[in-house]
């Protein structure tokens, strides 16, 4: 209804439209404005790409770090689960004594698996891997001890339980040295914790920067369209009607930036995976970098769109209001 003229109806009310059609029209209106905003980005591809690039790369960095941290976490979890204990046997222990020890250990309820590597096997493996090869033949006797590898059951794989098990194993007559590297695992955990905090901090800082950059881009858009906004205000457009296309522009920046970040993250991970493979081959460990799953990708897009919208909202609320016909 008109504010000034009783009986003069306004807008869509003049034509009788049903509720369903009005909802439909609301969506088609929004769709049209969204497509228009996308079209405007398309018409200035270079400028749009620069803004999308800023957003994309800003999201790529924390995303990549996030994936790497997550992978490190997973690897260390595997190590923790395996929690292997190495028992180095006394030099004088015979093959038969060692087998006797193995038999005893297999009966322990804490132990899931035992494997025996004889001193000769150790030497062979060492020759193969170390590259010293024939040089080792000049040694008068085999310096390597026989090794028993003990894998605790999952119940006894936690650092504390494994430590108790290790103490028990050390008391065995045949065992010279028992080793469970728990300390470095704990250090690794602390390190990962720090890395996680850093990634979060970095992400927050970058996100702030992105919001400001998008805000500034939209501000320039608004100033470029000053004349058009004045005309629209003169013929009775509300602020929210004028703001909408700019908000959609922010939305598109966010969506496209997010998609771009996804692609770059995949490339970066592929590259990291490739160099990791070469590195891991040295240690004869096969390692598969887990990439992003669907929910992470979705979350990334959501964050990106959120940033785009936040940036445009920031500037739209300030600047559209300021432009008034004079």
């Amino acid at each position, binding site marked *: 209804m008109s504010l000034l003229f009783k009986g003069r109806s306004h807008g869509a009310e003049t*034509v009788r*439209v049903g509720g369903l059609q009005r909802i439909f029209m609301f969506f088609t209106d929004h769709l049209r404005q969204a497509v228009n905003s996308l079209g405007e980005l398309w018409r200035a591809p270079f400028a749009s790409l620069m803004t999308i690039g800023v957003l994309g790369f800003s999201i790529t960095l924390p995303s990549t770090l996030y994936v790497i941290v997550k992978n490190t976490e997973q690897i260390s979890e595997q190590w923790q689960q395996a929690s292997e204990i190495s028992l180095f046997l006394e030099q004088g222990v015979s093959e038969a004594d060692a087998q006797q020890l193995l038999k005893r250990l297999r009966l322990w309820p804490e132990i899931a698996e035992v494997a025996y590597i004889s001193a000769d096997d150790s030497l062979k493996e060492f020759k193969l891997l170390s590259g010293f090869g024939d040089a080792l033949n000049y040694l008068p006797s085999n310096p390597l001890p026989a090794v028993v590898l003990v894998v605790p059951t999952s119940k006894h794989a936690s650092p504390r339980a494994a430590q108790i098990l290790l103490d028990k194993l050390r008391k065995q007559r045949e065992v010279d040295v028992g080793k469970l590297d728990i300390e470095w695992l704990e250090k690794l955990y602390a390190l990962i914790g720090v890395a996680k905090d850093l990634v979060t901090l970095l992400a927050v800082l970058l996100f702030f920067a992105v919001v400001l950059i998008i805000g500034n881009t939209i501000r320039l858009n608004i100033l470029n369209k000053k004349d058009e906004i004045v005309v*629209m205000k*003169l013929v009775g*457009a*509300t602020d929210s009607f004028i703001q909408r296309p700019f908000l959609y522009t922010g939305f598109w920046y966010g969506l496209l930036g997010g998609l771009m970040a996804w692609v770059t993250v995949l490339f970066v991970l592929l590259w990291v995976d490739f160099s990791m493979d070469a590195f891991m081959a040295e240690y004869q460990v096969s390692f598969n970098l887990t990439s992003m799953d669907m929910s992470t990708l979705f979350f990334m897009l959501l964050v990106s769109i959120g940033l785009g919208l936040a940036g445009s909202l920031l500037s739209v609320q300030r600047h559209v209001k300021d432009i*008034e016909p004079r």
Partner: protein
Amino acid sequence: MIKFEQVSKTYPGGQQALRKVDFHVEQGEMAFLTGHSGAGKSTLLKLISIMERPTVGRVMINGHDLSAITRKQIAYIRRDIGMIFQSHQLLMDKSVYDNVSLPLVIEGHTRKNISRRVDAALEMVGLRDKARSLPITLSGGEQQRVGIARAVVNRPPLLLADEPTGNLDPKLSMEIIRLFEDFNQAGVSVFIATHDLGLIARMKYRTLTLKNGQMITDGLDDAQDQGLFR
């Protein structure tokens, strides 16, 4: 329809644009506002369209005091007032059709309804065949008529025109005024600010004259008789 009660407007900096202006334009009336440039014509029109607020006094449209209108409501007020500008205020990168349909798009009409009304408005101003052209390709008179079509497309009860014939030759000016007469006969109140006295002299309409911010005559085309502009 438009009523000013003791309205004064002082701009920041102390420039007094209007002093105690009193007048009343009735519903369905067609009236001219005239005076030298700088006499306060534009300020007076801006007070009606709430581009400015009065320092003192009351401006009323259809009995509603505009001082009660909040910032958010201004947009809805402007939908009731068809405004025509000397500088046309058209969107130069949009087609004539898009320009004229703008008020309807803002109000959220259906596509069908928009196309029907825009066609009718363009028909009235004789530009039906130019719907797809860009305003930049049109002559000054044609651009002004696009502006008029846009002002009347949502059938407002009040038309305001600020120097609508400013850059046009007498023949074109007369055509524009005839258009306003047509709308007036359809019941629309029309208020036209112009310094084109020759144009006013040829017609017998009520003429309000401003001089240094004061209303000095309010009557039937007697400005010239008093020798004010010689």
